[in-house]
């Protein structure tokens, strides 16, 4: 009989009820008594020297309570990068200070140089207009190549625009160079991984409160990881004792990376709340989000693939410039390096891999991890060049990939890019894909499209990613400044219902539904009697939050460990209650029984006993039933997948329509298939957005051209098809207790190359064989230009 609850089932999401009835509580929905409002004065030039900021007129405006400028924060710390990267020559990366408010210089359009706190938002806006900023505009540094060539500097004190020049693995460099030189065939491709704006539909917001009596601060903020925000604010920026700051991240309307980081606005509202002894609220407009949220991607890459004439891979070598924008955001240094370079061997047995990444400061908004973070960039480069190679050698693109796949019996497999893949079966994924997609019927569908004047293309793709971020030992060696474990507390209340405090944060992923499935499966109690608590540093033990597809693999594992501890203790209590030896107690379906007898007690009775410990072995056991576990993963997890899509291209207008899209993924064990499917859908939607629509562009003066939905093309319902999604190929992760790998980013990683491969295929079928590549977004105008070039 199929299960109807617990692991592997798809209960409806319980959090949906509040969202569907308008009862969600997002940060901007929270209003505190006596709150005032912050509005920021932001630079309208990309690069400028601040001579003087005159706030005298603004200060006297109605309702104005306080005005802050960069000078007010000159003595506090900077917002740091979370990862120290060393250059190839061993030099540590350049790490200029990122202040709360710009000081000395403004470095990108939208860089905040002052903030007004007033009784109302409108009064604050009026006062911002009255601030007179004397700023001398400097030439903007926008293009990465020009930035590296020198001239002006984004940060004068470091006298370079290069943050680091990273080689991975530096010791492999010579061998890779030699292998490429000697190879019978080399395919080369230059490409751009287009810059994106994350665009969570809820814009960032922060409200701070300060209790004068106790000296306690509270920050309500749109964060994917409230503990990390607390750590950064306390330890690095404002120096507030960690036990005096409570960070609450309530319902959050999507993150996709952009809400991992600590931003200056959070520090500002905290400092202002203390100064005024009043709550201070700030909510970004969408226009502010475009200018100031950390953007994603923005790589310029040259990749070379060397192989035998039969397609056996010999070496991959890449040369990348990665834009980090004007300041180092918290994950900005790890994203283009360890989250990117280590994946550059893909699913393949290639012996030589070398990755070079130069990170470049520019007068643009900071760039950081965005859904997939580094792995989409790696997959895109690799899978595009493989596709090009297949065409050059006239090999079937699936066969070429299969020929080079790591085979199931080779796991664990040490990749040439330095990771140890624990489990996978890439051929099985393609077998499945070939079972789902009617590849045989493609010719007929192409002919049908051609009758309508359209070109039809088939794109296929394979990916591997590293999730479940991350083993602290390993990342420590690689330069991480924090550990990347997670934590959970399982609290069984006296009446038997359960609260689970988790360090992961749900902003759409459905933790409130999924984590109880795990606990319910283990304890045999009703899912509905288990409640998840997250997003509040005063309620949860600790946590590194949700990103990098880590919630279940890392925090879920902590939940398992804590629940195991509960079972251990409850077994002891049950043994006492049943007057049996602990080793004779069996726990099954929520019942403790003495093996070989009909004596048993229910889990609820044990819980009650723990809290009403009359007749209790106080010398052996403490009262209460609450356990905490921290879980540090032994390795990354390695989801992988095989994707296919068909597109139609209108050669007259260049418009591409996605006719079908199929994603076959191996996520290891799946706890809730409905939610996993939804995560893949969302990732594919974003991936198709990157491939066809989204393009964050600055002009040569550093003005953001795509600064609103008028110019930044968000995927809409009418741009996208229904998707076919399968995750029945399972190779469980070998090192976490649930055997899970993570599914949040897969779609965004696997889909962009699938789409571009299909577009190139379509153009070739129409005789446009000179088109070997089109940079994303593959917009109508670009396709048309490529055809007519």
């Amino acid at each position, binding site marked *: 009989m199929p299960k109807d609850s617990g692991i592997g089932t*798809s209960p*409806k*999401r319980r*959090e*949906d*009820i509040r*969202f*569907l*009835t*308008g*009862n*969600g*509580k*997002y940060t*901007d*929905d929270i*209003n505190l008594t006596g709150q005032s409002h912050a509005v920021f004065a932001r630079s309208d030039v990309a690069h400028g020297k601040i001579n003087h900021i005159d706030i005298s007129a603004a200060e006297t405006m109605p309702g104005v309570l306080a005005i802050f400028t960069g000078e007010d924060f000159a003595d506090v710390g900077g917002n740091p990068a979370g990862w120290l990267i060393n250059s190839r020559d061993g030099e540590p990366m350049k790490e200029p200070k990122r202040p709360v408010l710009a000081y000395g210089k403004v470095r990108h359009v939208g860089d905040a140089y002052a903030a007004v706190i007033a009784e109302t938002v*409108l009064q604050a806006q009026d006062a911002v207009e009255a601030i007179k900023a004397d700023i001398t505009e400097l030439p903007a540094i926008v293009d990465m190549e020009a930035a590296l060539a020198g001239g002006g500097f984004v940060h004068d004190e470091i006298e370079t625009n290069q943050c680091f020049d990273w080689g991975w693995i530096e010791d492999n460099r010579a061998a890779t160079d030699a292998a490429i030189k000697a190879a019978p065939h080399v395919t080369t491709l230059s490409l751009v991984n287009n810059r994106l704006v994350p*665009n*969570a*539909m*809820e*814009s960032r917001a922060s409200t701070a409160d300060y209790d004068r009596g106790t000296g306690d601060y509270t920050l309500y903020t749109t964060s994917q990881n409230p503990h990390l925000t607390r750590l950064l604010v306390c330890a690095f920026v404002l120096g507030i004792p960690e036990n005096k700051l409570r960070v609450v991240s309530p*319902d*959050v*309307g*999507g993150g*996709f990376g952009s809400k991992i980081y600590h931003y200056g606005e959070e520090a500002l509202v905290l400092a202002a709340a203390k100064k005024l002894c009043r709550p201070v609220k700030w909510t970004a407009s*969408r*226009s502010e989000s475009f200018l100031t949220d950390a953007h994603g991607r923005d790589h310029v890459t040259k990749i070379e693939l060397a192989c035998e004439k039969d397609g056996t891979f010999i070496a991959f070598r890449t040369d990348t410039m990665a834009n980090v924008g004007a300041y180092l955001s918290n994950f900005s240094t790890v994203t283009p390096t360890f989250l990117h370079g280590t994946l550059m061997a893909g699913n393949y047995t290639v012996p030589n891999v070398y990755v070079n990444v130069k990170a470049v400061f520019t007068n643009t908004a900071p760039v950081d991890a965005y859904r997939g973070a580094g792995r989409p960039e790696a997959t895109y480069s690799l899978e595009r060049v493989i596709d090009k190679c297949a065409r050059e050698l006239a090999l079937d693109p699936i066969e070429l990939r299969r020929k080079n796949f790591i085979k199931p019996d080779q796991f664990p497999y040490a990749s040439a890019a330095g990771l140890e893949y624990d489990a996978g079966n890439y051929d099985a994924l393609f077998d499945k894909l070939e079972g789902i997609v009617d590849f045989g019927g493609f010719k007929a569908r192409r002919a049908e499209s051609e009758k309508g004047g359209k070109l039809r293309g088939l794109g296929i793709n394979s990916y591997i990613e590293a999730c479940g971020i991350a083993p602290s030992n390993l990342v420590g060696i690689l330069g991480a400044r924090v550990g990347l474990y997670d934590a959970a507390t399982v609290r069984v209340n006296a009446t038997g219902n359960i609260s689970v405090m988790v360090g992961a944060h749900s*902003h*759409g*992923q*459905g933790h409130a539904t999924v984590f109880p499935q795990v606990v319910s499966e283990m304890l045999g109690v009703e899912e509905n009697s288990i409640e998840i608590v997250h997003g509040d540093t005063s309620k949860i033990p600790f946590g590194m939050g949700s990103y990098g597809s880590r919630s279940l693999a890392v925090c879920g594992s902590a939940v398992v460990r804590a629940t195991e501890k509960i079972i251990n203790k409850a077994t002891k209590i049950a043994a006492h209650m049943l007057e049996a030896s602990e080793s004779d107690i069996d726990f099954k379906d929520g019942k403790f029984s003495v093996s070989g007898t009909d004596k048993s007690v229910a889990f609820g009775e044990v819980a009650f006993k723990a809290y009403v410990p009359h007749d209790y072995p106080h010398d052996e056991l403490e009262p209460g039933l609450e356990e905490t576990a921290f879980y540090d993963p032994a390795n990354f997890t390695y989801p992988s997948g095989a994707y296919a899509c068909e597109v139609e291209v209108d050669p007259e207008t260049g418009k591409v329509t996605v006719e079908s899209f199929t994603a076959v993924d191996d996520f290891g064990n799946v706890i809730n*298939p*409905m*939610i996993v*499917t*939804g995560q893949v*859908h*969302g*990732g*594919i*939607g*974003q991936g*198709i957005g990157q491939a066809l629509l989204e393009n964050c562009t600055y002009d040569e003066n550093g003005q953001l051209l795509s600064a*609103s*939905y*008028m110019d930044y093309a*968000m*995927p*809409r*319902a*009418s741009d*996208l098809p*229904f*998707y*076919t*999604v399968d995750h029945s190929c399972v190779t469980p992760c070998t090192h976490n207790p649930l055997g899970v790998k993570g599914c949040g980013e897969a*779609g965004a990683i696997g889909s962009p190359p699938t789409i571009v491969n299909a577009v190139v295929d379509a153009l070739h079928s129409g005789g446009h064989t000179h088109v070997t590549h089109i940079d994303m977004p593959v917009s109508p105008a670009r396709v048309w230009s490529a055809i007519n070039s």
Partner: protein
Amino acid sequence: MLNITMKINGKAVSGTVEGRTLLVEFLRNDLHLTGTHVGCDTSQCGACTIHVNGIAVKSCSMFAVEADGASIDTIEGQENTDGSLNKIQQAFQDHHGLQCGFCTPGMVMAAADLLQNTPTPTEAEIRNHLDGNICRCTGYHNIVKAIMAASGQDVSAIAAE
């Protein structure tokens, strides 16, 4: 300041606003009906979609005074009288048509607008009707599916769990 009265979710409401107060600001700030969201400042995302006199409008692109005397429906008034989810809301839950929930109130209101004029919409009609509603989480698959299901169509053939 201007005095306005209107009916919101069947209840008479009055308030005092400035000319520039947007309808969404009146709902969220004055009436604490925070289910209607703001996702942009260029009238494109649809997170603020409500019904004014029975038709869908973007409450961020209308002044509160313009709604003086109107009858307004928001997400807060969509449940059945017994408090259960209405058929669109229920279909969204059944088919996992929401993730972070931020776009959801607007999506539900846009879907209701569609179904009152087009009781059995095609996939294309649904997708077109959502042109002014952006969702960043779902890739739209399950939203479209949920709306089809809410209209009584059999969606079992559409892939997914």
